[in-house]
């Protein structure tokens, strides 16, 4: 059966239908009026965020990178870093740094918690945040060849107290390695020093966190330091710890992409090896750090 067209209908000499669905137009009109992409990221919002964050990045945290050239200027890659600070300062620093230096977007994967909070969820999404779902990560990396940032420790990283600083938590269930394998992209480990001291968590009020449905309820040094001056807003201000980031060598996996599954043990081994590389790099950087504030 042939698809009816306006012509075939007329040719058949029948009553012309009220409305014949038109056959395919060659080029589709897409009257978009905003620059928000399918992930919710808006380059305009990012530009504004970068403008606002630049003084923080340059003057407050005085961020220094090492090995930034190891991040590819095109092609997908999964950036993996250690995660710290009650309000994590590492994510904006990494995203800002790469976007300004390499002029390419970075999508940050995070927990669904963000999506549920009004205003915050929307801003987070506009600023390049994407829900950490394997399908999302795969599409970004494989089909769109983007840079994707993930913290495999999840909320266990920022949720640790100050006495545990720079002790990497478990790397989840190594989902990030599996995604990188499926997507056929390298994992690029990044070691971050400074975030831990930018908002040290002195205590975690576990019952309160449970009651609020949050991963942790922190009492931070920042609340004590800035609280008397700024009131509740003090809890949001980071301490001016010196940030140093070291990009480690990209890890390529010698497995074909798009497999339905990968050897569990290989995935776990790769994840553990990446975790150790970051941990070693952190110890090395801390060994050379003279001061928390001046590096």
């Amino acid at each position: 059966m042939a698809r009816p067209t306006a012509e075939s209908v007329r040719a058949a000499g029948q009553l012309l239908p009220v409305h014949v669905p038109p056959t395919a137009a060659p080029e589709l009109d897409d009257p978009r009026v905003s620059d928000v992409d399918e992930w919710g990221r808006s380059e305009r919002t990012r530009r504004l965020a970068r403008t606002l964050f630049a003084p923080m990045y340059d003057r407050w945290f005085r961020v220094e990178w090492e090995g930034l050239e190891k991040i590819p200027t095109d092609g997908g890659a999964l950036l993996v870093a250690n995660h710290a600070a009650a309000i994590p300062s590492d994510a904006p620093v990494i995203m800002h740094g790469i976007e300004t230096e390499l002029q390419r977007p970075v999508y940050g994967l995070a927990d669904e918690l963000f999506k549920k909070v009004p205003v915050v969820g929307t801003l987070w999404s506009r600023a390049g945040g994407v829900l950490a779902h394997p399908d999302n990560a795969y599409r970004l990396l494989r089909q769109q060849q983007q840079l994707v940032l993930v913290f495999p420790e999840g909320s266990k990283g920022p949720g640790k107290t100050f006495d545990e600083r720079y002790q990497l938590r478990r790397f989840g269930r190594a989902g990030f390695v599996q995604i990188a394998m499926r997507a056929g992209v390298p994992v690029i480990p990044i070691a971050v020093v400074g975030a831990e001291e930018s908002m040290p968590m002195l205590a975690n009020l576990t019952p309160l966190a449970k009651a609020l449905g949050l991963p942790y309820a922190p009492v931070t040094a920042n609340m004590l330091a800035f609280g008397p001056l700024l009131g509740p807003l003090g809890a949001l201000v980071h301490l001016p710890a010196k940030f140093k980031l070291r990009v480690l060598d990209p890890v390529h996996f010698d497995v074909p992409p798009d497999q339905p599954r990968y050897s569990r043990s290989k995935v776990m081994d790769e994840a553990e090896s990446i975790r150790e590389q970051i941990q070693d790099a952190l110890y090395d950087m801390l060994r050379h750090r003279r001061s928390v504030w001046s590096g």
Partner: protein
Amino acid sequence: MGKRVLVTGLGTFWGARVAKALEADPGVDVIVGLDTREPLLELERTEYVKSDENYSILSRIVEATQVDTIVHTFLVVDSTQMRGRTMHEINVIGTMNLFAAATDSSVRTVVVKSSSYVYGCEPSDPVWFTEETPRQKPPKHRVERSLAEVESYVRDFAVDNPHVAVTMLRFSNVLGPELSTPLSRMLELPVVPHVFGFDPRFQFVHEDDVVRAMLFVLDHELAGVFNVAGDGLLPWSEVAGICGKRTVPLPPIGQGLVTAALARLGVDIPPEIVDLLKYGRGLDNGRLKRAGFDYTHTSAGAVQAFIESLRLKRTVGPKAEYQYEREVEDFFRRSPAVVRRPR
């Protein structure tokens, strides 16, 4: 010998549009349309049969007409239009009876018009659903539950009847000049409601593409599940922007109270739409495209087409409605006085 097609839901927007398009196809010999209500479009050769809402006479009709194709469009996805019980009768019991009648019969092709509601709408959902993305949480709203049950009947039928080509089309939010949906009615308001602090991405499919997709799968005898949705996702604020409207916030929690009050004022925002206003939903339309289907509208294009037709309607008024008259229709179909052109 040409096709013999049964269209359910002839009185609905979709049933009538599909029947109309099938009439223009010389490869279709017979079109039988079933519904509780009379068709709203002028149809030339479709035979309208009035039935009760759960199709108890269906097996007799299938037996008598020996149809080989069923296009099942009579599935309610707009939960504001009826009570839960009626929707259950139409969707679940109707589908059950339909497939009971189609089992061990002349039927070889079944096309079902389902909806993206079966995927649900949760904060933990991926941005894009493929046809295979599993639903993580059980259905929350009655329209979702109802469609999930319908789809399970469709799957059972497909398994039990391997000789029948079963196609299930899952449509995204439909917009267009003619169709009225909860979302289109929201966009017709002077100010468009949104949930405070949320601005999720929406996807739309133009009503023409819906009809074209149903004809396309019939035409190409495609079996399986297919998402039907326009290209691209756009934030709800941008949807309102294309329509040239401002938005007005609903509270971020306890929308139930507000929507209940609004429903009394005639603005009915069902709970499945409130979810959508918080988290949005995207369907990966790649499978149908790879099968060769071309869309005429993107998501943003569908919004544009909708608002343009709305502006025209506001100025020149709605089209004159067609009124079905049994005697008149019988005259055109049966009277020897009518000169019929050969097809």
